[in-house]
């Protein structure tokens, strides 16, 4: 599936459900936040309850529109995301907790 490959920078285990972890998206990926999946939260990070609240507080709520605008230089990390009408920067490891349903891709 060439389209799917183009929006994913890394293969995803969630591709069966049609959901993509934001942290695995490439530049141009667009979608809507479907839910937060804290099970995949990084083990050496803050606890998942805290991470969930931080993501929600900056605006990663269910139904929010996202688009990956920019990627970092090294390892394409962190990413800059358009989130509704704001812009947010975050590392891929935290963005992995945001599951999105892709709408269309720009490239």
């Amino acid at each position, binding site marked *: 599936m060439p389209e799917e490959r183009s929006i994913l920078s890394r293969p995803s285990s969630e591709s069966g459900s049609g959901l993509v972890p934001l942290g695995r998206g490439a530049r141009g990926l667009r979608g809507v936040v479907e839910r937060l999946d804290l099970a995949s939260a990084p083990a050496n990070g*803050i606890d998942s309850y805290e991470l969930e609240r*931080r993501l*929600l507080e900056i605006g990663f709520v269910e139904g929010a529109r996202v688009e990956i605008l920019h990627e970092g*230089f090294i390892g394409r990390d962190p990413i800059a995301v358009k989130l509704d009408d704001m812009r947010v920067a*975050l590392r891929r490891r935290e963005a992995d907790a945001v599951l999105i349903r892709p709408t269309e891709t720009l490239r």
Partner: protein
Amino acid sequence: MTVEVAAMSCRIALVGNPNSGKTALFNALTGSRQKVANYPGVTVERKEGVFDTPSGRRFQVVDLPGTYSLRARSPDEAVTRDVVLGRLQGEARPDVIVCVADATNLRLVLRLALELKQVGRPVVLSLNMFDIAKHRGIAIDLDRLADELGMPVVTSVAVRRNGTSELLEEIDRLAAQGLTSSRDEWQEPGPDEVRAAHREAERILKIAVAPPARPDSWTNRLDAVLLHPVAGTVVLLVILFLMFQAVFSWANPAMDGIKAAFEWLGGWVNATLPDGVLRSLIAEGVIAGVGSVLVFLPQILVLFFFIILLEDFGYMARAAFLMDKIMGGAGLHGRAFIPLLSSFACAIPGIMSTRVIDNRHDRLATILVAPLMTCSARIPVYTLIIGAFVPRNTVAGFIDLQGLVMFGLYATGIVSALLVAFVLRRLIWRSAVEPFIMELPSYKLPDPKNVIMGVWVRAKVFLQRAGTIILSIMILIWFLSTVPGAPEGATDPAINYSFAGMIGHALQPLLAPIGFTWEIAVALIPGLAAREVAVAALGTVYAVAGGEESTGALGATLAGHWSLATALSLLAWYVFAPQCASTLGVVKRETNSWRWPVILFIYMITLAYGASFVTYHIAVALGGG
């Protein structure tokens, strides 16, 4: 319950998202009538000021750090919460809360406003930067917004004259009708409460705010370049290079001027007053001490001018984005880059600029490694020793050996700073890797008045708080190096008979394993005042006239007294040793505790001793003894 607060002035707290122009609003309200202090026991600054309304009422206002929620994520953020809730000891609960919003970006602040409503104090929502919102054609139905939120809504343009008049009127109106307060019903919101509040904010936004007719296209266009993996990195490096150059070269003439002025003043005192301890205290203690505080001011002004300019423009978040991966490898936050780079000029402004880092551990780690960056005060020491001991050979046909050693010293500083940071953040403070989740604000033209005010506040903080600490340490060092004076008919330099001389001699057995002579040990004591002072101190101890001006003569003397191993060991010492009292003073001021300067001193002196020990013994083994 209605409380009349006619007699005493009433207290106002400013709360808002980061980048909402809250500090600009605070500056517009208070002008120069503000003061900066620390809350007890934490690194958070307490910014307070007073202002009068047109009706003649006087208000006290406190500016709280930008936040997305009252919920505390760190001990520092707990201060914001506790001040708003009136839970902080010695801090009266505010009578009115002003929620400051960026009128062009309301989504998140509406949720904060809803949260603030539960605090039980009147809340006013001030739509700041309303001129930009109007310019972009964002239609905000103010009455509808006020109805839905259940709080008065005013507009403000902090950077314009009279831009705060609506807010002042509203505060006046609230004070005139008698301030009401109800019970504090705030509870820390869990994920579901955040979701619910967000939905409510979304609903209000839909009713009261129409999306921009002319969206901000500048931010997208600029980001296409400034966040581009290659172009963005190049631009960042150019900006950093210019900043670094400016801190070095713009500040230098002013620093030379300050140095010259204080030397002249000291000389004048020496010529005017009769010889004695009092003259020495005034000339070499107080005047030289004040001079050594003021000499940092030009660098601090230049650096903070750039930092505040870039912050207000919205670029600082982008710089953090670009540098996050590199700094993150050492366990530091992307924002640690600016303080560490500035520390190449001087660790003092570098450490002061760590306040752009929010997380406490990230900030402390940056403060602790900043002095390892090779500051400009090490250059005279390095040039003296390299010039005297390293031959002017070329290596591999084109590399100058002296330059290579200099480069090696810089590189050692950088690598060890990153290693120490790594150890601190990954091994000691490993509890949790702080996530990097940061809003990238829209670009805005900085307001010159606001930039100048910000630079002025930092200069004042440095002079008042760090300055007093630095001055007292300088006078203590003067005392140690001067008292007791040389006895009648003494032949050795006077410093040998002083406390510094005694301490130096006492320390000598301890320093012998790293190859230091007793003269070096003595020179290290006055050398605590600042690294470059060691050059003059060595001149004094070896009784070479002219000191700093005649480094050639001093170099020749040293070459006659020291082995190569000793010289290399001293170089290694200066890469690591905390030979700078001002750094310790500013760390005390910035961390608001003596604990961190003590830890800094101990870890740096341990590294210095270890590095010198290894260097000395390898050099001796290779025949440099």
